[in-house]
């Protein structure tokens, strides 16, 4: 399929998915269910960031919660010290996150495998401790209330606190992020980063510098996580050090592995499954994480490409069977 045709198809899917999501709050009347769905969608955006990094760079990050959590603090501190309204503060925070992640990325993407994971863990925990200890600025472990201006990007700030309207905002953001990331993956740059992931030395010997593209992927993934963190802090109107803890990075990683990273939809499915399992199982037992652990092992053993990869393989087999008969 030609590239232009692929874009057209993806754009059509985006419009359809956006429309379906926008209609859901009309069909679901329970505020609790809508709230759960809103949180799941925010979580899915964060998972996309971590999954995208794994897919394009082959890097496992245990530190992306730092970008998730810092964005909330950034919005509060920009309002407090720079006098910015919430909209410009969001733009500034996400841009600064990108800049910071790029500089960090230039250094850390050179490290392979487990060393990269450990460095990201260390960076994430540094910010977690910083936010927990700097009481004067951050409110310490008590966190901060996110005070919003009356309007954010022309929308009433009340919309961001109500489950129904916030679900639509988050859903449309998710659809847009998936669309933009899929364009990036299908672009020449996406193919190059895939090649670098596959064989970095060969990529250099066919004439490509490899550090900057890898740092750029790291940057994009950090910005996506910052976007998720922004939505989360707007929805709850609160931010605390918990949102920077490594366990959040770990759960985003588990969700992306559950869904599978070969397809972008996989990370979204993974996030939805993880969130649902967490909600249902935590009602039953405090040891819900061990059950999710068993599920993760089962998925990795039976469907190494994740739930989405397994479903896609199953669909291919069914199509082949239907073709034969």
């Amino acid at each position, binding site marked *: 399929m030609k590239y232009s045709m692929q874009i057209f198809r993806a754009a059509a899917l985006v419009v359809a998915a956006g429309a379906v999501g926008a209609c859901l709050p009309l069909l679901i009347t329970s505020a609790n269910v809508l709230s759960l769905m809103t949180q799941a969608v925010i979580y899915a955006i964060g998972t996309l960031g971590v999954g995208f990094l794994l897919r394009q760079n082959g890097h496992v990050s245990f530190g992306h919660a730092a970008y998730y959590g810092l964005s909330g603090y950034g919005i509060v501190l920009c309002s407090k010290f720079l006098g910015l309204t919430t909209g410009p503060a969001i733009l500034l925070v996400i841009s600064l996150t990108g800049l910071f992640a790029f500089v960090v990325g230039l250094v850390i993407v050179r490290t392979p495998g487990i060393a990269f994971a450990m460095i990201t863990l260390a960076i994430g925990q540094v910010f977690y401790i910083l936010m927990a200890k700097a009481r004067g600025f951050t409110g310490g472990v008590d966190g901060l209330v996110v005070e919003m201006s009356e309007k954010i990007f022309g929308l009433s700030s009340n919309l961001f606190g109500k489950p129904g309207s916030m679900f639509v905002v988050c859903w449309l953001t998710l659809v847009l992020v998936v669309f933009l990331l899929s364009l990036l993956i299908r672009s*020449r740059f996406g193919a190059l980063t895939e*090649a670098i992931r596959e*064989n970095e030395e060969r990529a250099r010997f066919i004439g490509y510098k490899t550090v900057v593209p890898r740092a750029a992927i790291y940057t994009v993934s950090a910005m996506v996580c910052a976007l998720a963190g922004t939505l989360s802090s707007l929805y709850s109107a609160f931010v605390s050090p918990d949102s920077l803890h490594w366990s959040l990075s770990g759960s985003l990683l588990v969700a992306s592995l559950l869904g599978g990273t070969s397809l972008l939809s996989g990370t979204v499915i993974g996030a939805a499954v993880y969130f649902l399992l967490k909600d249902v199982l935590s009602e039953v037992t405090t040891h819900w994480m061990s059950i999710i652990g068993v599920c993760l092992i089962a998925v990795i053993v039976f469907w190494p490409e994740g739930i989405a990869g397994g479903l896609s393989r199953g669909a291919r087999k069914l199509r082949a069977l239907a073709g034969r008969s």
Partner: protein
Amino acid sequence: MNEAYALEVENLTVRYGGVVAVNGVSLKLKRGEIRGLIGPNGAGKSTVIDAISGRRASTGKVLLDGREISSLNVVQRRWIGLSRSFQRTSIFPAMRVRDQIKVAAARIPDCDVDELLEEFGLVPFQDKVAAEIGYGDQRRLDLSLAFLGKPSVLLLDEPMAGLSSEESRRLADHLQNLTRNWGVSLLLVEHDMEIVFGISDVVTVLESGKLIAENKPDIVRADPHVRAAYLGSAA
């Protein structure tokens, strides 16, 4: 500096701690020439290729088309026309054959992906993931990546490794044709002596990191020093 030479190496030395792996090797490769680089295991053949391509730190001078490239990194050397292959097949396993050639060709002006696929017999596999094609086809894909953009000099490190004798012969003929038609100069490290002596214009022999002979294949083959050091009954 002589512009008749595509590659000039002067006094190339590579040290691994206290061990001198390559000791003051000098060689000149004419345009369109195929140069065989032979020697026993551990003679330093692959290290010479690593040093020329910038993969391994070295002292001495390396000139490509008369321009000194000793201080350039591997990426810069590739862009000005120095390419290489590796002992082990070095491709992008999870990518489709066509996609990886497209990526590699993206920044090369007037690079015809279809011509390259055709030239290396990759058309039947172009939509397959590289990991799923046969070893011989992967080897050809590897070579196509190295030949991309018709480099001035190509360093090939055991390109026939793992191929059957029939496949090796076909590949040797192909390499000979490509160097002629595309004007690429070739430095070839290979253990198959029949192939090396069959297609090389000049053969250079290394022993313990030192150059011990350099001449036309027939003369090198008859050189008693070379026979004693390496060729033995293979000659």
